Structure formats: structure tokens, C-alpha cells
């Protein structure tokens, strides 16, 4: 049997984390190829809807990476991300999605090795959790669901 290879979506902020990922590439640091990076101008741009959309469109895990607190290019952008993601993790838990499928980390432009460490850790965590159950729900024909009684 082929081992489960998760799809991981990473939202990286333009000023720190994306540069950190760039540095990991330049420095030839290895990290799993499961991660797909989307660059956003600030981690504060990542709305909770982005995360749920990613999960229901087939991602098995979502990483949100931003500047360290105090280093935000927009001064307070990452403060909002921190608060928002904490609430979102709990909301995901109540909706029946493992909260650990979403992870928020701070990676600066100089931390290429930290980027690779986070991606490696997160990938093995998602491998342990298995495929995201939300994926099957959304891709099914919605009309089937109406006949089910639970």
C-alpha cells in the first residue's frame, strides 16, 4: 500500500515567512515536498474562511506563517492573526475537524532552518492524523445527504 502523502497548504507572509522559505531553498535545506506555499502580504490577511476553504477543497493541513510578534511589517497585523487563529482552532474542534490540522507559527526571514523544521514536523503530524474527513463531505453530491437520518 502506498503511504498517505498529505497535501499541506502554507500561507506565508511576504516580509518574513516567505523570505524564510526562500532562504531554506537557497541554503539547500531539505523539507517535505507536501507543502504548497501561498504568499500573502501579511498573516493578518488570512481569514478563517481561507482555512476552511482550503480544508474543504482537499488540503489535509493548513500552516499559517507570519512574522514574530513585534516584527510585523504592518505593526499589528500578526496580533490579529494570533487571536483569530486561536478562536478558529476551537471552532474547528467543535465542528469536528481536528484542531491540529491548523497550525500558526512565526518564522522570520533569517529562519530558513526553522521553516524546514516546522514543515517536517507538521507533515508527520498530518500523516499521523490521516486524510482530512471534510474533503469527502464537500466533494459528495449534496443531495445524497438529505436522505440520511442521524
Amino acid at each position, binding site marked *: 500500500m502506498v503511504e498517505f502523502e498529505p497535501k499541506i497548504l502554507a500561507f506565508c507572509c511576504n516580509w518574513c515567512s516567505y523570505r524564510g522559505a526562500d532562504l531554506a531553498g537557497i541554503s539547500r535545506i531539505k523539507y517535505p515536498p507536501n507543502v504548497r506555499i501561498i504568499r500573502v502580504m501579511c498573516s493578518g490577511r488570512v481569514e478563517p474562511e481561507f482555512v476552511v476553504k482550503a480544508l*474543504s477543497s482537499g488540503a489535509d493541513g493548513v500552516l499559517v506563517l507570519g512574522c514574530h510578534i513585534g516584527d510585523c511589517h504592518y505593526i499589528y497585523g500578526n496580533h490579529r492573526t494570533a487571536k483569530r487563529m486561536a478562536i478558529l482552532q476551537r471552532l474547528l474542534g467543535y465542528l469536528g475537524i481536528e484542531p491540529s490540522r491548523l497550525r500558526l507559527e512565526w518564522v522570520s526571514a533569517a529562519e530558513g532552518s526553522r521553516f524546514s523544521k516546522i514543515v517536517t514536523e507538521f507533515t508527520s503530524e498530518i500523516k499521523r492524523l490521516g486524510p482530512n474527513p471534510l474533503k469527502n463531505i464537500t466533494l459528495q453530491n449534496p443531495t445524497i445527504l438529505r436522505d440520511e437520518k442521524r
Partner: protein
Amino acid sequence: MIGNIRDLARKWLEDKEVDAIFALREQNGYLAPYLFTNVDKLGSMEISTQYRLSYTCRPSKENILSLMQRKEPSTRIGIVARGCEERALIELAKRSQIDLGKTKIMGIACTQEEAIECKCERPYPDNLVLGQKVEGVSQDENVDALLNKSITERLAFWRYQFSKCIKCYGCRNACPMCFCKDCKMEQGVFTETGWLPPEIPMFLFIRFSHISERCIWCGECEKACPVDIPLLTLFKLLRRDIKDLFDYEAGMDMTQEAPLLTTLDEMPMKEELASGI
């Protein structure tokens, strides 16, 4: 109870404390919001648990009170408000939707039966003018039932519940905190339009995430829902979490700013709770 409210309203109007009283009026057996300016008409004033004054009016998506204040900014309005309505007014004022400086709240307490009917945790306003404070209901079997479920059972539960949705937008229209003119639930950006049931869980998730920290747990969404989706269950759980994380409760303190609108310096988050579950 209603007699006392009418008497006090008469006193406020006669003493020129307010220019008008905003309350419910009975006409031809129906209740509707009415602005009382004439003391002779106060006999038709009514109160009801079925109809909240914070009810949003459509299609302008504007609260009745904010609409009145925009049209007549200088009018001082007295408003008959229950606990939940007062919380809604405070939360709306925090978000610059209404001006509380121009209003005078006549806080009335709910009876024990009404509190049980609404499963209300706080059936009295801060600014209590009339009525006796009664204890709220702290237990909610829906909340306990959800917490006892495993993570896969929760997903199955919500999958069934959300699949009932007929996309009537009743929850959004009834919510006193939903005041955006452009609503994400209507746009095709996150949920594909034209599907029934709407995308699970995205459609209702938009409301959960937007209202999370401003929900004043009035339960209007759940009452408005024609297919009985237990929406309030999630909002009650989120409220507990927000209280744990930020020590903040929506609609309680006018001076306390909402956590998602402030920085970590202004309203810190309890770090030890931030990452784990």
C-alpha cells in the same frame, strides 16, 4: 409589569427626559415596533419575548434604531430593552452602529419562565429599571451533548445539521449583530451560489467566524431557523472560549473593546491556552 412600563414611559415623556419611546405596539392583534411620542397612545404599548427591537430591518440591512438615529440625529430615544437587547445595543454602539449617548435604556428583567424558554444565561440587563432579577439557566443539554461527542461524531452531527439548511438567510437577518451591507454569504467567493444545501460547512461557518466574538447569545438565529439547526450551541461554546482566552464578554462593558479589533498589547491573550485545545 406592562402597567409599570407604561407608567414609567409616560413619566419619561412628560418630564421631557426623552423625545420618544421605542417599544412594541399592538395593532389589530399584531405586534410591531413603534415610536411613541404621544402619551395618549401609550395604552397600546406591549412587551413580548417573540419580537426583539434589535431585529434588523431589510433590505437596507440596517437596525431600526440606527436608521432612526441617522434620519433624526438630535432625537433622544428611550428604549424598552430586555437583557439580550441591552447587550445588543451596547455591542452595536461599540461598533459605531448606534449612539448610546442619545438613548436612555429602560431595562426590564425577564421572568423565570421566559428565561427557561430562551435557555438564557443572563435574563436581566445591567441597567435594571423594572422587574425582579431572576437566575439564568446555566445548563444547556445541546452544549453538553456536543462536548460528549468524539471528533468524528461531531463532524457527522454537523454534516447532518448543515445539510438541512435551505439557505433562507433567516439566521443572518434575525441576528442583531449582522449589519454588514455586503454579506459574504451572498457572494460567490467562498460558497458556490445556486446549490442546496449550501456548501458544508462553509456557508454557516462564515457566520460562526464573523459573529464569534460579538455574539450576545440572544438566540434569535436559532429561533429564526425553520429547519432547527442548533446554531446557538456553537455560539455558546465560542463565548466560553473567548471568556477564557481574553476575559471578554460581548455586550457587557461599554469601555471594553472587542478582542479581535484590538492588539495583543491592548487586550492580551492567555498564551498557555492559545495553541492547544
